[in-house]
Every structure is written in structure tokens, then in C-alpha cells.
């Protein structure tokens, strides 16, 4: 049975699709298209009507489409070490012109299908059809895909186009690039970098600027050791906003439009508030949605925070969730027995594998750190500087623990599943101490597993399943203990 998708989810998907489509269209029309880090103040770019793409969102999408490995390897072939963040590697390979493409025969211009791809063919009763010759399930030809190969747009563009055959070949090769939106984003004309999440971002964007010989507009947010953001730190970021505005004026040849900026701020605040409202639905027990849904909806907060449509779509989703509460339904496809916080970025190439043991054990993710992390709410430009100072990896351990323990309490979690993400040193770097604090302060068990946000080679499914199993057993024991105590 096809999954029913709620109006809110459809609206959220459309917002992101539109952001990508608008950027492609802008490029076609010869307008500037930029690439931006996810927590760069998008309000500034919105004030100049700039079309902006988000490499982190793009890389997550590429990884989820199973092309993370080929792109990571392409970056490694360019000299980037495989220890570097998987998002950065995917993005740098893309910036260098590398693309995941469908393999085809250059003579016949027909795709070469990978016999290993595709889903089993089912008969009219839904039964898997067995091939009598091999004794194995037959593949549904509609779901079979060509082999994936690496291509390079610069190589393609350098191809001759004098004869008809050459033209046909060149066009086919262009079209053979995988057709999903993240593999078709326009090359950047400028980059917007805010390193509040990590310093890797600084080097990543410098590399893009160098590869493409384009301007880099930088907002530097140094790491903060206290829960409060000192006025001197705010002043430093505030001055950079003015600097960035000046650079954007130079880039676009336009004056800074205060009205557009204020509108973008208004939308960004509304998006943040509605995002938080949606996240708060996970406080209901049982929850009206799967926490994994939030991972998908993050795309909107990243790519369209400053747009009215994003704020509206989250509002719509909140209405869907309200309806779920009334109907006693949930997007979670199994009964919720345990509730956990998922710590870290998900392993995008392995989402089904992440979900499988959780489903098998009735575990719903009811808390994710992204909830508070993207809830930038502010009233003026100084507060905006202060808000951008507080990204997940730019805050001290006390603030980080406080955020997490807050959502763990509010969303009533029974345990914490910690992703030690090979791609993210700043995030994983104090997780061990955080785990100790969660157990001490909340009395909940924690389990850690090794993975990666984009490179599937760094995820070990067997280890993950064992750790989830261990966590479930500990949660079970905790529950039994509590029930005994209640008697």
C-alpha cells in the first residue's frame, strides 16, 4: 500500500524542491547563484534576493541517494584525505565538477543496467516471482537502474561537437548525470560561509572559492566557553554582518534592502518558531510522528528558513500532527514502546539500516538535537548575532548538555543513542562526557555506535544492531525497576 503523505509534508517537500528549481532557473537566466553553509545568516542573502544552495543539505541528499561513496572517493582522488568530513568531501568533489552519472554505451547511447539493482518482481497477489532458471527472485525491470559511474562536467564541456554523432554523445553524457536535484545544482558564483558549526567549514569554503575562483563571504564565529555570549563576542559578529552586507552590495551591485531583510528576519523567526512547535509534538506519548521525520524536515530549515513558504509549511505540518493527536495516529509505522534521543547527524546512506533495529524493538526517536539547534529566534540584529553564536558545535559543554537534557526531559526519553560520527570531530569530541552526564542527570542508559553522516564505509551495521540491542535491554531493565518501585 502506498504511504499516505500529509499536506504538511507535501508542502515542506515543495518548498525545498522550489529552492533547488529556482536556483537552476536563476543560473539559466544568468543570475548569480551562491553556495552557503547551513547556519550562515540566510537573512542577509534574502535581503539581496540571492538564490542560494546549501552544500550540507546537498551532500546529505547525495549520501541518502547512495552516491556518497563514489563522491567521497572522487574527492580522495583529488587529494582530500578520507579522514575529512564526508559532506566536505562530497561537496568538494562536486565543486571540482565531479558527478555521479548513469553508465551508458557510447555507441548505442543506451544505459547499461546493473543486474544487481532493482526490487523483486511481485505477482498480482503480492508474492515474489521466482525465476525458474536460477531459483532466485526475479527483478522488477521498472526498478532496475544503470550502473553508477563518475563523470566530470569539465570533461563533458570540453568534448567536440562538430558532427551529429558528437553532439548526440555530448548531450547524452550531460543527461546521464543522475537526475535527482542534489546532483544537478548549479556551480557557485560566490560562497557564504559561517563557521559556527565547525572550522572545517572555513577550509572547505576556502577550497571552493579557490577551485571556482569566486568570492567568499565569511562570518567567523569562534568557539564559546560559556553559556552566555559576551557582548564583546556579539560586537565581533555584528561588525562582520556589516562587512558581509558591504561585500554583498559589491557582489550584486545592489543596495542593502532593509525591508527585504526585515521580512526575511520575520520569516526566519516564524520558521524557527514553527519548527520548534513541530518538534514539540514529540513530547506527546505516544508521539504523533516518527522522530526520523524531523531529519527529513530539516532540509526546509536549512534551505528555506528565511522564506515565508517554509514557515507556512511547518504550520501546516503542525496542523497535521494536531490531527494525528486527535485521531490517535502517528507516522511511526509501529507501536511506540521506547523513546530515545538520537544524538548527532544521522548516517544518511544507511537510514533504512538505522531504522530497522529501532522498528524491531519498538523504539521511536522522540528527541533530536536539531530541534533547539535550528530554533534561532531573535528580535533585532544584535540578538540575531547572539542567536547565530549558538550553533550545536560552537557552544560549551554545559550549554550542549542543557539543550539535550531539556529535550530529553520534555520529550520523555528512556535512553540515548549516540552517533560517534567520523565526519564530525567537533560534535563527537565531547560526547563521552555528555553521555556520562545524561546517565547521571537523567538516569537513562546511553549507547554509542560508530558511523558517518555521508561515507557508508564508516558504518558497521552489526555493531550498530548490537548497541541498539544493548540499549533496549538497559531500557527494559530500567522500566522493570521503575515498575517494581511503583508497586
Amino acid at each position: 500500500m502506498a504511504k499516505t503523505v500529509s499536506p504538511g509534508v507535501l508542502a515542506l517537500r515543495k518548498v525545498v524542491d522550489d529552492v533547488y528549481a529556482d536556483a537552476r532557473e536563476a543560473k539559466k537566466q544568468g543570475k548569480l547563484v551562491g553556495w552557503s553553509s547551513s547556519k550562515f545568516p540566510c537573512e542577509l542573502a534574502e535581503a539581496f534576493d540571492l538564490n542560494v544552495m546549501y552544500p550540507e543539505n546537498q551532500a546529505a541528499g547525495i549520501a541518502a541517494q547512495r552516491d556518497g561513496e563514489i563522491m567521497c572517493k572522487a574527492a580522495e582522488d583529488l587529494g582530500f584525505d578520507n579522514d575529512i568530513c564526508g559532506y566536505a568531501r562530497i561537496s568538494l568533489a562536486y565543486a571540482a565538477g565531479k558527478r555521479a552519472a548513469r553508465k551508458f554505451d557510447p555507441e548505442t547511447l543506451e544505459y547499461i543496467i546493473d543486474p544487481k539493482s532493482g526490487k523483486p518482481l511481485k505477482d498480482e497477489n503480492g508474492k515474489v516471482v521466482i525465476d525458474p532458471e536460477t531459483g532466485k527472485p526475479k527483478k522488477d525491470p521498472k526498478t532496475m537502474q544503470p550502473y553508477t559511474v563518475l563523470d566530470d562536467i569539465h570533461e563533458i564541456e570540453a568534448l567536440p561537437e562538430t558532427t551529429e554523432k558528437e553532439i548526440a554523445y555530448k548531450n547524452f553524457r550531460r543527461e546521464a548525470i543522475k537526475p535527482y536535484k542534489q546532483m544537478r545544482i548549479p556551480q557557485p558564483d560566490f560562497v557564504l560561509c559561517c563557521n559556527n558549526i565547525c572550522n572545517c567549514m572555513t577550509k572547505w569554503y576556502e577550497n571552493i572559492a579557490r577551485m571556482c575562483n569566486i568570492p567568499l563571504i565569511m562570518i567567523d564565529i569562534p568557539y564559546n566557553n560559556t553559556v552566555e555570549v559576551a557582548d564583546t563576542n556579539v560586537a565581533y559578529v555584528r561588525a562582520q554582518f556589516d562587512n558581509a552586507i558591504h561585500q554583498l552590495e559589491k557582489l550584486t551591485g545592489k543596495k542593502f534592502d532593509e525591508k527585504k531583510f526585515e521580512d526575511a528576519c520575520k520569516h526566519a523567526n516564524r520558521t524557527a518558531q514553527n519548527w520548534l512547535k513541530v518538534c514539540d509534538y514529540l513530547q506527546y506519548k505516544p508521539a504523533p510522528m516518527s522522530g526520523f521525520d524531523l531529519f527529513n524536515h530539516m532540509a526546509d530549515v536549512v534551505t528555506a528558513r528565511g522564506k515565508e513558504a517554509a514557515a507556512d509549511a511547518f504550520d501546516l505540518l503542525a496542523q497535521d500532527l494536531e490531527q494525528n493527536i486527535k485521531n490517535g495516529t502517528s507516522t511511526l509505522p509501529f507501536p511506540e514502546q521506547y523513546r530515545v534521543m538520537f544524538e548527532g547527524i544521522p548516517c544518511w546512506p544507511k537510514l533504512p539500516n538505522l531504522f530497522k533495529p529501532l522498528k524491531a524493538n519498538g523504539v521511536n526517536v522522540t528527541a533530536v538535537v536539531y530541534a533547539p539547534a535550528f530554533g534561532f529566534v531573535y528580535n533585532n540584529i544584535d540578538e540575531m548575532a547572539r542567536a547565530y553564536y549558538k550553533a550545536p558545535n560552537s557552544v560549551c559543554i554545559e550549554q550542549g548538555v542543557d539543550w539535550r537534557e531539556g529535550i530529553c526531559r520534555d520529550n520523555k526519553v528512556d535512553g540515548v543513542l549516540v552517533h560517534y560520527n567520523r565526519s564530525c570531530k567537533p560534535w563527537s569530541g565531547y560526547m563521552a562526557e555528555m553521555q556520562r552526564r545524561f546517565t547521571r542527570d537523567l538516569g537513562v542508559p546511553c549507547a554509542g555506535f560508530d558511523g558517518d553522516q555521508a561515507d557508508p564505509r564508516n558504518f558497521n551495521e552489526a555493531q550498530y544492531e548490537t548497541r541498539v540491542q544493548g540499549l533496549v535491554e538497559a531500557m527494559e531493565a530500567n522500566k522493570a525497576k521503575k515498575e517494581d518501585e511503583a508497586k
Partner: protein
Amino acid sequence: MSTEVLLKEFAEVAEHPHRVLTGYKNEGKKVIGVLPYFAPVELVLAAGMVPMGIWGSNKKTISMAKEYCATFYCTIAQLALEMLLDGTMDQLDGIITPTICDTLRPMSQNFRVAMEGKLPCIFLAHPQYRRPSFGLQFTVDQYMHVKAELEKISGTAITDDSLREAIKVMNRSRAARRNFVKLASEHCDVITAVKRSAVLRAAWFMEPAVFAEKLETLNAELAKLPAANWTGKKVVTSGIICDNPKLLQIFDDNHIAIAADDVAQESRSFRVDASEEGDPMMALAQQFADQDYDDLLYDEESNKNRRGEFVAKLVKDSGAQGLVLFMQQFCDPEEMEYPYLKKALDAAGVPHIKLGVDQQMRDFGQASTAIQAFADVL
């Protein structure tokens, strides 16, 4: 004092920083541990205390630090934490924890948590916008915080005069090291790779004024010697750190001399002086602003390959035939800048090799083969 005796003294310090620390404590001095990178040690000096660098260890193994840290972090940071946990640095009176890279950011928290109630940890965040007025102001603001914390530990106020005096001492130490690097290349028959490293490493552990004076003496002795009639090869070294005597012995065994370096623990740390005039705090901020061609730092002209070209030129100017890059495992900034360093080196016709290193390496067989093979093609 003879060159040989001086070199032995430096080697002794480089090899046994713990003994040096104990010596300071026996003299009743307060000592501040200084983690990488760019911490203004002048402030420590001006507070009447001794700064000692913490650059991990070539002898320790990570064990207790595993309680705080996953495996995929640079061993310099992990071993620094190990030495804080295992008691090696119990005699310190405080540490300064800069946060310029993604490992040092969370590690600053681990240091503070692990040392709570035991050792003051002074947090330091440098700005990546170093040169505009708002960047300079931010550096001053951060340094003012470090100053206040150091004053609490020392019980002594840091005055403009004491800070200016400290700047003079550090400038002298830096100038002596820059001079030494040149002399070490000219007299590479005497200053082998192992000895060169010991002298530069000792700078992190000795009282700066004492070090500067001793190094000036050594430099004067070296200047008297006839230039080496070197028949071996010369290279430039690059990386975060390469101070393991066993690793450097491979250079000496293969008649490879170090003509110059682009190493964070060596030349990158003493390329830039602070002004001895004007407001001394601003002079320190300006000194940080003047740091350049460093992969740890943001380059406002990032669409150019300034650092890569700078290093390639350094190789050419130094008379070296190639470059040996010691790639510190899990060091993002170095790894991120490698493709463009390679590009600049290739464009300049400078051969290079990249050797993966970490401080827990004990077997250098592979490195030896690679260095030997590299020397053969130079």
C-alpha cells in the same frame, strides 16, 4: 661553551621536559602549560610565570584519555589530555587552551572538565578575521580574559611595562630561532636533523630569556664555522610537528639535511614578532593578525593559492631539492590544504612526499623506506 656542549644541553631539555618542570617548581616558580596554537606566551612571562609548551608526547600511549575522546582525534591533543590525567603535568599551575581547530574546540571542554577543581584551564578563542579592526578588538578582548586569569594564578598584575618587556624577550627568542634555522642549514654537517629539532623543541620548555641567550651563544659559535661542504640532499619539512628523534634519525642516516621548515611547532611559531612600541596588548593582537600562510588560519584572499605558493617558494629560496610533508593523522586543516599545497609544489617543480604520522608511531620502517626512496630521486 662549545657547540657540542650547548647542543647536548638543548637535547637534554628536549628529551626531559618533566625534569625541567620539576626544576622550575623547585625554584618556586609558577608554570603555565600552553597548548597549540598561537597562545600569547608573553602574557605568561609578564605575569612572572614560566610558559611551557604542550605538544603531546612521543613516548606515551593513549589510555586514560579514551574516557573522553573517540579514536579519530589528533594524538597531540589526546596525549596532552593523557598527560593531564596520568599526573605527568600535576606540577603545572594552569594551562591555556586555544581552540583554532575542530579537535581543540571540544578538547578545551574535555581539559576543563577533566581538570575541574585541580588545575585552572584558561580558555582562548582566536578570531579568523584577524586583520580588520573588529578582529583586532576581538583578539584584544580574548587576551584580556587570558591576562585576568593569569593574574589570578600568579597573584601579580600584568602591567604595560612588564608586557612590553616580555614582548622584547620573546622577540629575542624568535629572532634567535630564525637565525638558528638559517645557520642550521648552512652548517647541516654539525646541526643534523635530530639536533636541529632538539634545539627548536627546547624553546617550548626553557625560560624564554635563558633559551634566547643560550641559542644566541650557539648561533655565534655556528657562525664561526666554515659552511658545510654538503654532499647529501636538502629538504624542507612541513606539517604540524616532526620532533620525534627516531623519525628524524632517518634523515641523518640518509644524509638528508633540513634547509628550512613550514612546521607549526617550529618556524610557523616564530615567523612573526610583536611590536615593542605602543600599546603592548594591541601589539600582541597585531602579531596574531600578521600571522600568514598558515593552514590553521583563514585567508581573506582564499580564491588564491597563497599558502601553497609561499611554501613552494620557501623550498626554492632555501636551496632544498624537495619537501617532506609530515601529515598529522586526523588533522583536518592540514588535510584540507594538501591538494592545493601539492598543486603549488607541482607547478613549481618541487618534488614532495607525504608521510602520515602520529605520536603513537613506534615503528618507522615504512617511513624509512619512503624517505630513502625520496632522497634517491631528488
